[in-house]
């Protein structure tokens, strides 16, 4: 089991540091470069959500990402201490759909973050314990 924790301040300007780090750490997995990129994307989406939704874009809070890998599974936890999400949202969310021929003005601008995570990862869960919110993503190796 290999495990490393990464912490940044709740500032969107620093999220790329987590992205770069996760991408590099993924090189110890058997995943291809393009899969590593998608895992980086999922972690960036989750960290963005913690900053934008849980901390309402307020700086000065911590977002903690734990990357751990055993022989079979890669697990990434994203933890914040901000406003909790209703775990139902995670269950019900799906990629925004649209008619490709429809008017451009009807295409939604947001709401793709969790759907991307659900599509790329094998399993995603969300829980709140003692004021800490954990989004946990699993991916089989």
């Amino acid at each position, binding site marked *: 089991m290999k495990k490393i924790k990464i912490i940044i301040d709740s500032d969107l300007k620093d999220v790329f540091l987590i992205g770069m780090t996760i991408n590099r750490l993924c090189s110890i997995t058997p995943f291809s470069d*393009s899969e590593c990129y998608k895992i980086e994307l999922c972690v960036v989406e989750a960290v963005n959500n913690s900053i934008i939704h849980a901390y309402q874009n307020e700086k000065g809070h911590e977002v903690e990402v734990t990357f751990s890998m055993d022989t079979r599974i890669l697990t990434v936890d994203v933890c914040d201490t901000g406003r909790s999400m209703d775990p139902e949202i995670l269950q019900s969310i799906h990629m*925004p759909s649209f008619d490709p021929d429809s008017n451009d003005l009807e295409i939604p*601008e947001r709401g793709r*973050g969790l759907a991307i995570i659900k599509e*790329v990862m094998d399993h995603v869960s969300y829980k709140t314990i003692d004021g800490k919110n954990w989004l946990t993503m699993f991916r089989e190796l």
Partner: protein
Amino acid sequence: MEISEQKIDNKTILSLKGRLDASSAKELKDKVSDLAKEGNTFLVVDMGHADFIDSSGLGSLVSCLRSVSRLGGDIRICSLKDSVRAVFELTRLHLIFEIFDNSDDALKSI
């Protein structure tokens, strides 16, 4: 992210460099809204040097498309890196944007 701008006839090429993400999405929206205000609504977004895009970055492109569409303009996208193209496909947005291999083809099409 860095945005550089080039005018060719009544069209504008915006070249993006770096990461189009939640921290830079607004920059692109502001840029396009400024251009639109000056009447520049036919845009090519060259992403040949953009190495990362997230859902906020995609959202900013959707928002840009809306603002120029509303004024009768349009957006073409070109030169996507494989990793960035994969995110368009993941979100099905490659069905909305017309995507070209290079900026010449994109310019000709608009």
